[in-house]
């Protein structure tokens, strides 16, 4: 399932719901990305995520479908926020469920790597010296290319 929302969420509570009441799942992997209070030595006061409504959901659904084709997943979940958020707040949660450990862990890493290079989100940091758009990292392209 894909959720793109402005509202804050609690990854722990989402994970408790995910896979609740199912006894056919042997493994659940998750990744949570959070706003950090500093970046390259500069203090981060807040972070605003812009996105491309419509294309965001479409890309995330495509990425999720790709994961479910590559690995035997029983379930998967991607929640991504947009708008303004403060240090410590979760930005993204990816969770995967499978009968098998490697499938859950690999699919979770894959979903994050592809999301990082394909989902149309852009981070703008508020720092004491002003607002800066975050630059994409080459390491993210390399991480996505390994799959």
């Amino acid at each position, binding site marked *: 399932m894909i959720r793109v929302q402005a509202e804050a969420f609690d990854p722990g509570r989402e994970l408790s719901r995910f896979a609740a009441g199912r006894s056919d799942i042997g493994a659940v992997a998750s990744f949570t990305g959070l706003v950090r209070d500093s970046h390259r030595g500069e203090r981060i006061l807040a972070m605003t995520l812009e996105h491309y409504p419509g294309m965001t959901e479409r890309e995330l659904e495509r990425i999720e479908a790709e994961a479910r084709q590559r690995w035997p997943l029983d379930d998967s979940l991607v929640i*991504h926020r947009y708008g303004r958020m403060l240090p410590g707040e979760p930005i993204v949660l990816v969770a995967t469920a499978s009968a098998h450990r490697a499938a859950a862990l690999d699919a979770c890493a894959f979903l994050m790597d592809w999301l990082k290079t394909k989902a149309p989100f*852009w981070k703008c940091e508020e720092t004491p010296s002003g607002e800066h*758009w975050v*630059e994409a990292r080459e390491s993210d392209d390399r991480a996505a290319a390994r799959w």
Partner: protein
Amino acid sequence: MRIRYFAWLKQRTGCVEEELDLPAEIETVADLVTYLGERHPRFAEAASGRGVVRCAVDQTHAEPTARLAGAREVAFFPPVTGG
């Protein structure tokens, strides 16, 4: 055709979106980038850097060689930084 700009490209063009009637000779994404660069010099400057300006045609990632025939919405944006 509706052209949309995201993140810092909005500051380069001074607009979030614009509705344009394109000349018939604009056939590909690359053609459109050149055409828009004439309207917005600071967009041209950004687009001259390799891989700095990305494109989506009707909300699907598109290469410079992608054709525009039938497209309703084309978006330009820097490399994504979500997650």
